[in-house]
């Protein structure tokens, strides 16, 4: 082992230098990054730039060469990046407040421009965040509260995306999509909404109770009418006999032996009720 090292020292060193030189002059660019080669601060060329609809494996990813020490490589994300906005308070045209939380998705499509203007994708995100906030506030402030809630339906989000895209173009970026992630009522409006919801429920509870009573009344009245019809159908066959029959029943009940002994009834002999006492 040591003999080999001793005998071929120069060759070993030369081979090592070659290997190190190769390693310094090749760069491996993976599929999800774009590599900008910079010569003394000036971007000179791009490897694996973003191309819409290029399939993976057909892109410029892989091994590329650079002149060691003269050219530096800046790696830039090729993927879809996100700008997450701080929550913004939007005032609608009908003077209602809403806390809106949105995000944007963008990608770097002009890496050279981006390297010149911002340098890193983090910087781009930092630049875009306040722009997104103000654009969201302005654009949504042109709408009523109700249409704020359904901002996706109209042109609002697209307008915001276009405005932001115009700004992002300065940084070689393209804004793909802007969406409202959350829309919450601020503290005061929240309390008011709770009160309104409760009032609505109380109304509903009262209505339900009234409806229940109404239905019960109707059910009872229907039953009484039905019972009356049954009685009439049956007793109407012979009103006179019914009168007698019913009187007999009634006497049995009225003058029944009262266990409690607390019943005193005084009736005039001419009382109609006692008709059948005299005459069957």
């Amino acid at each position, binding site marked *: 082992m040591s003999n080999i090292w001793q005998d071929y020292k120069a060759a070993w060193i030369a081979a090592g230098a070659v290997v190190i030189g190769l390693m310094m002059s090749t760069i491996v660019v993976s*599929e999800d990054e774009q590599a900008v080669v910079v010569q003394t601060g000036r971007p000179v060329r791009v490897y694996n730039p973003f191309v819409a609809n290029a399939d993976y494996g057909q892109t410029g990813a892989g091994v590329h060469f650079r002149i060691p020490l003269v050219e530096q490589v800046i790696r830039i994300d090729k993927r879809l990046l996100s700008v997450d906005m701080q929550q913004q308070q939007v005032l609608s045209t009908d003077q209602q407040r809403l806390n809106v939380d949105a995000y944007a998705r963008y990608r770097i499509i002009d890496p050279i421009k981006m390297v010149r203007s911002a340098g890193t994708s983090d910087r781009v995100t930092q630049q875009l965040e306040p722009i997104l906030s103000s654009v969201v506030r302005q654009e949504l402030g042109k709408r009523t509260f109700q249409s704020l*809630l359904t901002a996706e339906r109209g042109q609002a989000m697209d307008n915001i995306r276009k405005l932001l895209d115009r700004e992002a173009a300065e940084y070689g970026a393209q804004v793909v999509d802007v969406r409202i992630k959350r829309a919450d009522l601020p503290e005061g409006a929240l309390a008011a909404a709770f009160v309104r919801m409760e009032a609505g429920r109380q109304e509903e509870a009262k209505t*339900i109770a009234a409806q*229940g009573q109404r239905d*019960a009344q109707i059910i009872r009245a229907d039953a009484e009418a039905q019972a009356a019809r049954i009685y009439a159908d049956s007793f109407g066959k012979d009103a006179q006999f019914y009168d*007698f029959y019913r009187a007999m*029943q009634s006497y049995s009940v009225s003058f029944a032996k009262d266990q409690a002994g607390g019943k005193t009834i005084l009736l005039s002999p001419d009382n109609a009720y006692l008709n059948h006492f005299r005459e069957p």
Partner: protein
Amino acid sequence: MAGRNSPWGGGGSNGGGNDGGDGEGPADGEGSAPSGAPEQPQGETPERKGPRNPWLPSGDGTPPRRSASIEDIFRGRAEQRRPGGGGGGPRIPGGFPNLPRRPDGKSWLPLGIGAAVVAVLAISSVHMLGPKEQGVVTTLGKYSRTIDSGVSLTLPWPIERVKVVDVSSFQVVMIPDNENEKLMLTSDKSLVDLSYLVRWNIKGLKDYTFRLADPDETVQEVAEAAMRASIAQVSLGEALSGAGRAQVEQDVGERMQRILDFYRAGIAIQGVEIKKADPPAKTKGAFDNVNVAQQEAERDRSEARAWAQQVIARAQGDATAFDKVYEEYKLAPDVTKRRMYYETMERVLRDNDTVVGEKGVNTVLPLPEMKRRPAPAADPSISAPTSTGGQ
């Protein structure tokens, strides 16, 4: 490091001489080691500073610390402490026993390094993928192919790299990921407290791997945006009702799929499930009152229905009874009528103290009452039962 009960005993000063003794005799160098060493017996007498040295003659323990000079201790211990044939070869000051030699007297070291390199290369060129997994192979950064489950060979690291991902299992995102209220606005400006989960899996591994900066977070953000948009289009009542919830779930799933496909995320939404859709906790009382009112209304209705049943049943009973008597009466009207009259009178007059006035029976009075009360007025008020039946 030698354990306390190894033949090398105390503080590793075997032949190393006194390394600038700081008053710590080797006997205690380890004796004051943190407890928890398995061979340290617990419950020592307090004045004993360390464990008993098993190589000292039993009976009295180590001499008290600091009473003897370091040299003494060393001398004393060195005499007792000679190994009875330890495992390693002769020890070198570095503390490493020499590796055994190859038969031809050369070192194993280069071979060992070579073997390690070969092992790394071998391990990184054979890949075992489970049944649900796929792997993306990149050759020097460039995508080359996707490997499926089973055993695959690739060029070794660092030329080809494989990123293995579970593509079939459904990932689950819970929103919100805690127990807090997550209030969302409905179309009628009411609020609903929602928690839901999204199931998804990978449908395009290449896109999933390379297209998005943070696919998992993207799923969550898209879910929130889609749910917010869908809830803003339904009323509170719909959001709380079962049918409305199902509609929202479907709506959100479709919306998410559209957005993610637009991002070309390589993600398939398998389902959205609303776990909870409640009114806000602060309004819960009012909502409960509605439920109470509903139950009461239902109770009113069912009471009325029960009463109605009774009324009709009694009417039917009375009518049927009358019909039957009437059948008899029609056969012999006079006789039947008389018979009924006498039977009734018998019953009535037998049961009561009867007073017969000038025109016939006009009053029925229980006598005790008469005794207790003053005589009634001449023309008494009439209170006859008016109900339709005997109670």
